[in-house]
């Protein structure tokens, strides 16, 4: 499989790999995928509660180069966005940015799920209702 230059770049130099302290109230964690499906993504956001802005984002991904690149890109995009702006990120934007082939679209879907799942976790921790997560 030929990977795009952007996928190779994110794979070789992943942005924001790491772990945030999930015990903190302003940290939301999303864990999506399953080991037997070949991809597991964990995406975390840290939110400045005063401005509702994402100040930090970290990921760890078990998966192919496209899955790693999708989550790496997602963390780049999340930083500086408000929670509402983050919710609007669509998986097709990731597909376009990374030039993912059709067989790898599920990697972008997983990244979108991870973002929504992290936001939902943050909401629940802060007394808001969970998001209705659509399972693709």
């Amino acid at each position, binding site marked *: 499989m030929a990977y795009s230059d952007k996928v190779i770049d994110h794979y070789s130099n992943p942005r924001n790999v790491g772990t945030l302290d999930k015990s903190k109230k302003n940290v939301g964690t999303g864990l999506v*995928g399953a*080991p037997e499906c070949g991809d597991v993504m964990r995406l975390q956001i840290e939110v400045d509660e005063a401005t509702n802005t994402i100040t930090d984002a970290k990921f760890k991904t078990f998966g192919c180069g496209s*899955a790693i690149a999708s989550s790496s890109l997602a963390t780049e995009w999340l930083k500086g966005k408000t929670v509402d702006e983050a919710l609007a990120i669509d998986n097709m934007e990731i597909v376009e940015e990374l030039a993912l082939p059709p067989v790898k679209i599920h990697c972008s879907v997983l990244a979108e*799920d991870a973002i929504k799942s992290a936001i939902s976790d943050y909401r629940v921790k802060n007394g808001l209702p969970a998001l209705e997560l659509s399972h693709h």
Partner: protein
Amino acid sequence: MLKLPIYLDNNATTPLDPRVLEAMMPYLTDVFGNAASRNHPFGWAAEEAVDYSREQIAKLINCDPKEIIFTSGATESDNLGIKGVFEMYSQKGNHIITATTEHKAVLDTCKHIEKLGGKVTYLPVNEQGLISLEELEAAITPQTILVTIMYGNNETGTIQPIREIAKIAHSHGALFMTDGTQAVGKIPVDVIADGIDIMAFTAHKMYGPKGVGALYVRRKNPRVKVTAQMDGGGHERGMRSGTLNVPGIVGLGKACELAMQEMAADTARLSAMRDRLERELLTLEESYVNGSREHRLPHVTNISFKYVEGEGLMMGVKDLAVSSGSACTSASLEPSYVLKALGLSDDLAHSSLRFGLSRFTTDEQIDYAINHVKEAVTKLREMSPLWEMFKEGVDLSKIEWAEH
């Protein structure tokens, strides 16, 4: 200076030995005759070369030169052996026994036999990749005409107990066939001592050219016959029609001659190199050798690295030409059926790498491979949430994963 990528996929194919090419060259140019042309010196020269090749092959596997049937390769040989026996011995029975870890050339041929009304038993293997002799014996019926079990496995290198299998088959009046593709030229294979009646093998796994192989068919004790699967001029004692690939056959003969001369030295050097590679890679936590380490081809190792995803791993080891997951169907994302037959979970089967060394592999290349794989696995684990959970003592099997 080390040239990248490094080729460590020698179970898929080997490079042509320059000495083999040299032997072949005249038959690609000046000596172009058809070995079946009996009326002029062009044909005689070609026939002489083919007969010489038969002798070279016969010496390597301890058979009579007349027992060699030339084919286009191991897949054709497997087809000819199995389908040929099924047709030839249809009066005697219709049952064939094989194993789940065979090559697709055997498994898909057996599926074909089933469509034709034949019965096939697919023996399971244990976690070492070995069949059970008791299960083999129990599977034999009065209808059993053939037991076909590969010599050495292409993915793990596991060597089956060939002599014992042959004895059991013979004691029940069945023929014994083996797919010797990975073993011939690598380890001593002796059709008399081993009790082999039919054996498929090919040139390009032992530094010969692609597109040429052979089927050994025993001529006495017992005299075995296979029904031709291709109609035509009745070449190869009527068992395989088609103008002989003279340069290829010369190459196969030369490759066998070289294998015989160099096997002992190659085995000593390659198994030492393989063991070093394996020892070093096993210093990575949660890495496992797949298949038997005791009964194994000297140049092969297959290792799974837990908590690393296979495709990501392949991308990480881009400077190495190796196989992952499944040897012959790497285009699909299905985990290897051979590794699954050994009892591996999907994720462990996906995260496996197969290393196949060759006569041309150097210590410098192995050094590079060791460092490259260690770096890739370490980097991917640092990025893996599963590795982090494992390190924290989380039982991953107890997590409810959100399937997508």
